[in-house]
């Protein structure tokens, strides 16, 4: 019998290239004001951890991609990246 191993999907959602990120810009200028040098850009995004029941990796990836397209990301302005951790 296969033991029950929940699978973790890590989802990073960030603004697409070319979409102005005012929060990232504000953080960037705060870092500069604090004296952190050598920072050329900051982008702020969202990070979600989704725990899934045991399922084949292909199926998990497909499911999480559907979640991103339907609800988690607004694909007009955001892109997403999925990492599965068994």
């Amino acid at each position, binding site marked *: 019998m296969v033991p029950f191993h929940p699978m973790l999907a890590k989802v990073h959602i960030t603004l697409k290239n070319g*979409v*102005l990120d*005012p*929060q990232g810009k*504000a953080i960037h200028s705060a870092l500069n004001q604090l004296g952190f040098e050598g920072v050329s850009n900051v982008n702020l995004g969202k990070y979600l951890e989704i725990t899934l029941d045991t399922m084949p990796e292909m199926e998990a990836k497909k499911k999480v991609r559907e979640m991103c397209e339907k*609800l*988690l990301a*607004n694909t*007009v*302005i955001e892109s997403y990246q999925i990492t599965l951790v068994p």
Partner: protein
Amino acid sequence: MNCGVVVFPGSNCDHDVYHILKHVFGLETKWVWHKDRSLKGFDLVVLPGGFSYGDYLRAGAIARFSPIMDAVINYAEGGGRLLGICNGFQVLVESGLLPGALMRNRSQKFICKPVHLRLENHDTPFTLGTQSGAILKIPVAHAEGNYFADPETLKTMNEQGQIVFRYCNPEGTVSEESNPNGSSENIAGIANTRKNVLGMMPHPERCADPLWRDRDGQVIFKSLIKSYYS
């Protein structure tokens, strides 16, 4: 004319718009709970302002999947008049009934103040009571009103007359200084191509009571009534 005001958990301008429709304009007005599934018999449906579902994930992103939304989409696709104000506008873009997206204000701040709008298209049921070029003073109150659409979408919207309001100065000049939130092309309100769906960030229901000094918001409701009876 039968009006429905949709109430999501977290809506907070629902009573204001209900008051204007029912008590100021004397229209038959009913509440529609977000768990209802029918919009039968309505001539106008309003998605009001507020913070549906606490703005979790993105403003409007979760309300967009409320049980009532299938009926809202069918109603709009059938030509029903649908007005989304502030959070209601955010729900409309999330649902895909209107193009583009509403992002965090460029300033990062919640903005609550009267602004001036230039009417860009009077050929809609929401604006036919006035003329293109008219300047309206209507308050905004939002943190996510920064309208974004890609250049191609903006081009189509301009060609189709979908841009209904732009932020301007009191003289009607649309400029960077009169843009409160960073919206593309100073966009404050847009319609779908068929012009039966309007989304706007400013709150016409907050300046439509005759007891108040500012009443420019009445234009929207008067236009809808005029359009219904013509």
